[in-house]
């Protein structure tokens, strides 16, 4: 790439992350800050814009991802493109029907999926849409603080792009992004995203709430236990004797088992749909990928090699070891 990328910016639930790349795919700047708010207000965006300036980001062009609660995606069966049928219109209408919205109000797109084993006629596509007014609202909020939105991507596409170096060339591979509001599982067949699902029950916030309840403690301590002790069984110090750590571990293990079940279901569905072999790798990204011992605990449950993603997988040595940058990095890697 000949130019510096736009700023890949992801404003999630309570967190903001940003990445910008130099020509050639080297890291120019990155940031991960706690905003403490779910509300995408002008004030929050202005604060993030000031941080971008301080952290050495260049230019005012930003690439965002569609908000989780507004984006619509679905696997759709459509007529063959060779038939001349208006596929784009069909996709938009189908997504509008699912979202109970007016088709003309959606900005929709889709890509063709490989033919699956039971497909006799027609084609399958993965359609993604965002209501135009939601897109306008996003652009307007950023424009108010002098940032120009050049693209809005689907979050799962951005995460899969960031993990590209690990999953490239695999017949079947999975990516799980574990974040605060929900986890997201994405399945790729020969480098094409063929399945995507959001798992609101497997978000970190739900797990923290469970820990608060089980341990009768506050949110700060519960978050600390989750992100620092996690699923580790042996510490080699006094922590090995703490009973409450055992209780926390049980709750985290139960949550991880639920997540594993969802991942396994997604991978099995795709394996049967395309009659292909087992997944080559399951990549863990997002805030939750930092939970100590998670990858090791998950691997036997999903019976697939599990890899904890880090920006250095895509950018080489020297990149910050922060799996929560996956979405922002994937957005920057578009080079809009």
């Amino acid at each position, binding site marked *: 790439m000949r130019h510096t990328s736009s700023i890949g910016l992801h404003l999630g639930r309570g967190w903001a992350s940003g990445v910008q790349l130099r020509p050639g795919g080297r890291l120019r700047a990155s940031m991960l800050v706690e905003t403490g708010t779910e509300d995408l207000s002008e004030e929050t965006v202005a604060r993030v814009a000031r941080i971008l300036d301080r952290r050495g980001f260049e230019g005012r062009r930003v690439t965002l991802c*569609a908000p989780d609660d507004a*984006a619509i995606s679905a696997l759709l069966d459509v007529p063959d493109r*060779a*038939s*001349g*049928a*208006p596929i784009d*219109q069909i996709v938009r209408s189908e997504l509008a029907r699912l979202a109970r919205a007016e088709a003309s109000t959606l*900005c929709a*797109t889709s*890509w063709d999926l490989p033919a699956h084993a039971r497909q006799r006629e027609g084609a399958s596509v*993965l359609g*993604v*849409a*965002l209501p*135009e007014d939601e*897109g*306008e609202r996003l*652009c307007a909020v950023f424009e108010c603080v002098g940032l120009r*939105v*050049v*693209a*809005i*991507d*689907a979050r799962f*596409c951005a995460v*899969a*792009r960031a993990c*590209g170096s690990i999953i*490239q060339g695999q017949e079947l591979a999975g990516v799980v992004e574990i974040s605060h509001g929900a986890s997201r599982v994405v399945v*790729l067949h020969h*480098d*094409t*995203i063929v399945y995507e699902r959001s798992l609101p029950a497997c978000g970190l916030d739900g797990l923290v709430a469970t820990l608060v309840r089980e341990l009768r403690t506050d949110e700060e301590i519960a978050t600390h236990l989750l992100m620092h002790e996690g699923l580790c069984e042996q510490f080699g110090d006094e922590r090995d004797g703490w009973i409450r750590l055992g209780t926390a571990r049980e709750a985290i293990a139960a949550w991880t088992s639920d997540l594993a079940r969802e991942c396994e279901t997604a991978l099995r569905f795709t394996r049967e749909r395309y009659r292909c072999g087992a997944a080559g790798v399951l990549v863990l990204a997002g805030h939750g990928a930092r939970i100590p011992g998670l990858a090791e605990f998950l691997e036997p449950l999903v019976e697939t090699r599990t890899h904890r993603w880090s920006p250095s997988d895509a950018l080489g040595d020297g990149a910050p070891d922060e799996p929560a940058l996956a979405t922002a990095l994937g957005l920057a890697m*578009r080079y*809009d």
Partner: protein
Amino acid sequence: MKETINLLPRDRLRAIVMHRRITQWGAAVSLCATVVLPAALALREGVDPALIERARRSEEILASLQQQRSMLAKELAGLQQELRAETTLEAQARWESLIEHVLTLLGEDAALERLAIERVQSPDGTARYHLALRGLVREQSDALDLTVRLEGLGVFERVVLEESARRETIAGELISFRIRATLRGSEA
């Protein structure tokens, strides 16, 4: 991974694409002015005079073609305006003029089975007019081509190829098509 999508509102996306094209065009013009032109001028000193004369004539022909093109474009714009005026409903559309244009577009390669002007009442009380065409063409691409040509007329807000399928006829296997074209600004 091949999926690079952009869910920006359509108007904004169009503006970005246009901006990108203008930037690229500007860069190309700058390149010509700073590199290609001086190099061409430098080379010209050692070039055969006959070649220079041929280049001059080519430039003249190109200029005349461009002039003709702009005249034709003006003429086309006038015709489109005329056609639009004739199809506005306040003026009680002169359908024969529109149908004549459509039949000219069909040419000899398409056989028309049905041509109808349908009035559809929207729930909000406004009426829209659709031109419904049904017929036969030789190839799938002919049906698509016809759709594009109808769009090119400039009087339709939307032209949709609703159906195109193979059909056995006495003349062999042909493609039957169904096209619906919505007239621009056809609220009653």
